[in-house]
């Protein structure tokens, strides 16, 4: 019934670097790049600081990355399951659920101390203390203000309302951190400018420089400000409207394809309790996958026909098919995962056979399937609490167990053990070692090796099953 589709290579997804705002100290550039390049964050941070000393390249690079790299959470949010994203938008889930990672403060201190040290070192070498400090202060101020604006930008994605008020644009949702940052940034800017002024003369010259700069900024703001504000607002409104209508269309389409159809079927079959239960279970599984699962089962209505991309997805698809066909409940728990390949295909086939056996013969409504992929080796356990049987007593004509499970696994370089006793249910363990654990060439159907394989499996079951643990 189930079509275990031919293996397909997953389409290559271009990896794009982004700024990691969750873990960043300043703008998340180093954290984002570290994630992208697979390097330790601290190394990158120190690299930036060191490059700043050697001619200021680090600072320029950092600034450029900050300006041009998109922030990563935007991408994440787009990829979140609709149910989770919706609950997060409504404030029904805590923000930053998993907490901030440890070690953040430590990193901040390291980088801060290094920066101060570098300023001091440069001062000692160059000897023109005032200028270095002034430039450092101005740069620090601008960075702080920019970071504030950045934070606001990020909150806008979380925000549900589409309007952006000008105060909010600068302040975000307020809070002491935002205020401190703005105050500190402004103070740093001011101090830097005053210091710059001092270089050329007394306090008077400093005041004039500050005044001139302020007047310049003010003039620019008056001229360009309203236009910019209007443009930004229009853009924001347009964008949210578009996103909203797209989302609404998506949700409507999915509800129509799935929930409405199922409800209609349930109304038609209201008298048939078994059918209603089956429909409801299938619909629940589908909706649950759509709302909460990180790995989406592809397009709406996927499940049976669609090609699975990972081992766990394939096992889930098999479980779903058996659930529908036999009217039992199959709970799949997966730890780790492996990409779908020719090699894991026999595992899925064996699991399918085991689950079908449990559905047919165990006489219980529930089967547990546990998939574990650790260090490449695949272990699957299929367990029911049904009637059970005596494995030594297995009639010779039971091809399901011997042929489809045990022999199949042995043929493909794995093992299968069945452990059962009358009245105690059955557990089938399927094991496929990692390729390098294996003596023979993997994944060749009908491989001539493995003589005397049939004594393996069933005969040694009970004792072996116990011995394995």
């Amino acid at each position: 019934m189930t079509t275990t589709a031919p293996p397909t290579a997953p389409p290559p997804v271009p990896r794009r670097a982004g700024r990691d705002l969750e873990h960043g100290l300043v703008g998340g550039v180093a954290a984002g790049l570290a994630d992208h390049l697979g390097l330790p964050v601290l190394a990158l941070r120190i690299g930036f600081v060191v490059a700043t000393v050697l001619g200021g390249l680090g600072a320029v690079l950092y600034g450029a990355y900050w300006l041009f790299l998109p922030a990563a959470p935007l991408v994440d949010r787009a990829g979140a399951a609709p149910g989770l994203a919706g609950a997060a938008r409504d404030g029904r889930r805590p923000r930053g659920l998993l907490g901030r990672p440890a070690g953040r403060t430590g990193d901040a201190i390291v980088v801060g101390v290094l920066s101060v040290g570098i300023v001091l070192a440069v001062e000692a070498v160059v000897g023109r203390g005032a200028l270095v400090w002034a430039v450092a202060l101005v740069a620090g101020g601008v960075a702080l203000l920019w970071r504030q604006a950045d934070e606001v930008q990020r909150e806008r994605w979380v925000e549900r309302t589409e309007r952006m008020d000008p105060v909010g644009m600068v302040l975000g949702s307020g809070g002491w951190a935002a205020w401190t940052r703005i105050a500190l940034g402004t103070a740093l800017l001011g101090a830097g400018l005053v210091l710059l002024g001092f270089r050329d003369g007394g306090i008077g010259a400093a005041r004039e420089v500050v005044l001139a700069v302020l007047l310049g900024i003010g003039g620019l703001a008056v001229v360009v400000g309203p236009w910019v504000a209007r443009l930004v607002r229009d853009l924001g409104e347009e964008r949210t409207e578009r996103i909203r209508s797209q989302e609404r269309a998506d949700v409507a389409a999915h509800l129509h394809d799935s929930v409405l159809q199922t409800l209609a079927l349930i109304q038609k079959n209201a008298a048939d309790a078994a059918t209603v239960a089956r429909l409801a279970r299938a619909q629940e599984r589908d909706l649950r996958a759509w709302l909460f699962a990180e790995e989406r089962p592809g397009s709406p209505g996927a499940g049976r026909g669609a090609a699975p991309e990972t081992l766990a997805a394939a096992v889930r698809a098999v479980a779903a098919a058996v659930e529908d066909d036999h009217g039992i409940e199959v709970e799949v728990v997966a730890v780790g995962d492996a990409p779908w390949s020719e090699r894991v295909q026999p595992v899925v086939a064996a699991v399918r056979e085991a689950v079908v056996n449990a559905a047919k013969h165990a006489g219980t409504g529930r089967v547990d399937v546990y998939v574990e992929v650790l260090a490449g080796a695949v272990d699957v356990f299929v367990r029911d609490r049904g009637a059970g049987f005596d494995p030594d007593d297995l009639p010779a004509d039971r091809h399901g167990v011997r042929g489809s499970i045990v022999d199949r696994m042995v043929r493909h370089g794995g093992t299968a053990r069945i452990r059962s006793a009358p009245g105690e249910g059955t557990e089938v363990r399927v094991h496929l070692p990692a390729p390098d654990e294996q003596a023979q060439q993997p994944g060749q159907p009908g491989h001539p090796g493995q003589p005397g394989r049939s004594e393996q499996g069933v005969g040694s079951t009970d004792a072996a099953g116990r011995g394995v643990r």
Partner: protein
Amino acid sequence: MRVVVVDDHHMFRTGVRSELAAAPAAVTVVAEAADVDTAVAAVERERPAVVLLDVHLPGGGGVEVIRRTQTTVPGTRFLALSVSDAAEDVIGTIRGGARGYVTKTISGAELVDAIGRVADGDAVFSPRLAGFVLDAFAGAIQVAEVDSDLDRLSEREREVMRLIARGYAYKEVAKELFISVKTVETHMSSVLRKLQLSSRHELTRWASDRRLL
């Protein structure tokens, strides 16, 4: 046992109440709440043995309720009861301080049993939850930076969690590993402890939150 039911869906609260009414000797629902604020008020007023807590809740989610009542009602245990089985929600709630996590498809009898176990101070791990825990410690689910000493599951704890993930009941785990049920529960609660405090950083915060430092 006195129980408070927190869920923002009225229908669901009614449903839970009627399911629990089937075991009046074991469980009494003393209050209901629909959002974080009313839940905190109800928990502080009633001081129940167990709070059945929805994970998605207006006002910041179920974790927020735990966070705000943990110090005021230290004897109360939280059992998350959610329709969401996303890893992030499950692990996040357990790390927030819930003693167990069950999904809403659970049967009435199983729910009563879970409430009883949580009230006794034990943890309730469903197979799915055990799977997430294993994944979290294997590093497949992003939880937080790990601290090498605290964060490892011992060989035995891993074994227990694997059996739970395979659908074994506690006493079957005990039989399988030739240990007592009590030992299984000890392993579970140390898993829970490791999950909640996966770094020294958080351990410090945890201690200072409880005025232990």
